[in-house]
């Protein structure tokens, strides 16, 4: 890539932002130190990676061995938890291919942490405590109002008057048409989850309070990822997300501990990859063995540090909070 201008060798963020960024990282470490949550570092390179067909891992080689750059430190952290680490957190770089835009950089900073004995609601409390702590520590008044918490179902009912757990793909499409939401070129008309993702970003999230946090919890079981399915309502999984306005900041799970269930989800996702003409990836057998050995009852969450900085500093481009954005890398 040739430099676009003569100043492109310089940082894409101002020094005020970089100083604030350093203070934010110090604040995060201080919060967890006070609560006896252990900071850990785990490998960026792994022989296995996430099967999720919506996430593209970069890969490289060690001699002739293929290695993936991690899209999140989740699998390694779960191996620590299963080995008896207790509460842990990590601040690290994660990598996602083909994600570049106003709110996306192919490598970004993630804060991920796990708390034993907490379900997803208690972990949301913990997140609120962290956000309040950082707000006070950094002198940024972000927590004037208490974050709203609503279920995925409630969010759809309020914004679009439709039940996302019951509606068919055709009904979801009809809602998009009624509300004047554009139908993307190439939409898989029969794919319920694709419609739900599209309506979430176009119709539901835009209805959230603009200058405030919103938690959405209990996603459809078809979008469980690594969360456990609810015992009371098998239509939903105990997954949650945090938004600022309509910007997605964090994703968390009341963690699935059943190794067999996890293996079947991985295999199903690899199958979806093949159906979409993508390469299947190596399933993480170490992580599955760790679940089999016993993952303690816990919840975990990952928050994009760069996006949190954008929110705290009212920036509109991720490049404005990165020392060097991808375009200048």
């Amino acid at each position: 890539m040739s430099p676009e201008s003569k100043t492109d060798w310089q940082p894409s963020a101002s020094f005020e932002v970089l100083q604030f960024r350093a203070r934010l990282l110090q604040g995060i470490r201080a919060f967890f130190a006070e609560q006896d949550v252990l900071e850990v570092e785990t490998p960026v390179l792994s022989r296995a990676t996430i099967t999720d067909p919506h996430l593209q891992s970069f890969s490289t080689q060690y001699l002739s061995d293929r290695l993936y750059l991690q899209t999140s430190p989740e699998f390694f952290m779960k191996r620590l938890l299963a080995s008896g680490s207790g509460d842990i957190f990590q601040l690290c770089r994660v990598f996602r291919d083909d994600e570049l835009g106003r709110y996306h950089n192919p490598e970004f900073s993630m804060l991920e942490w796990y708390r034993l004995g907490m379900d997803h609601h208690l972990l949301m409390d913990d997140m609120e405590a962290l956000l309040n702590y950082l707000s006070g520590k950094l002198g940024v008044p972000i927590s004037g109002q208490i974050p709203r918490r609503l279920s995925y179902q409630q969010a759809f009912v309020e914004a679009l008057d439709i039940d996302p757990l019951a509606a068919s793909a055709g009904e979801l499409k009809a809602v998009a048409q009624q509300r004047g939401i554009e139908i993307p070129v190439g939409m898989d008309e029969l794919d319920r989850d694709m419609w739900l993702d599209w309506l979430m970003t176009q119709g539901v999230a835009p209805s959230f309070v603009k200058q405030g946090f919103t938690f959405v919890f209990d996603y459809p079981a078809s979008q469980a990822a690594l969360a456990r399915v609810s015992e009371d309502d098998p239509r939903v999984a105990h997954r949650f997300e945090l938004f600022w306005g309509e910007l997605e900041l964090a994703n968390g799970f009341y963690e699935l501990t059943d190794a067999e269930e996890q293996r079947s989800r991985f295999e199903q996702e690899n199958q979806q990859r093949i159906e979409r003409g993508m390469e299947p990836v190596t399933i993480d057998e170490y992580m599955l063995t760790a679940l089999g050995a016993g993952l303690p009852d816990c919840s975990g969450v990952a928050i994009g540090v760069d996006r949190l900085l954008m929110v705290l500093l009212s920036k509109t481009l991720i490049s404005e909070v990165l020392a060097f954005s991808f375009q200048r890398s």
Partner: protein
Amino acid sequence: MASYSTNEFRGGLKLLLDGDPYNIIENELVKPGKGQAFNRVKLRNLKTGRVIERTFKSGESAEAADVMDVDMEFSYNDGEFWYFMDPNTYEQVGAGEAAMTDAAKWLKGQELCTVTLWNGEPLLVSPPNFVELTVTETDPGLKGDTAQGGTKPATLESGAVVKVPLFIEQGEVLKVDTRSGEYVSRVKD
């Protein structure tokens, strides 16, 4: 037929949508952390100039528009079309008023223009950045007033009217910037 996948979308790429050629102005990723990605694209219709937005599921393809920029020499105007010739192939094309926009008023003949062709038909003609034209009409010049400010209108041989300094005389050759429509300097033989 050539096509581009969404991960090749970037500013300046030319796409064919609903039979019309478009130029990508902006491409934005819409992607939940866990879920389907989409590309929201802002495009300009190269025929009408109208800007539209269209969203594609990521991984989809769109047909490429056969649009290219060719340097061509202005030959003549027959009252309806302005004719341009490719100096390498001697091929000739005729551009109508819609493709000429403002270009016509800067052209007297032989200027090398950038002609944007779509399937071989002119979509847009861009004049050279600088042209040299003779003043055909202006108020008499003020002798010695070379340092003072102040301007007056001058009509050029191609028909354009530009603001010029007060010392400019009829019959002088001027260099003009066609992008701003501003006088640059006198051209001395």
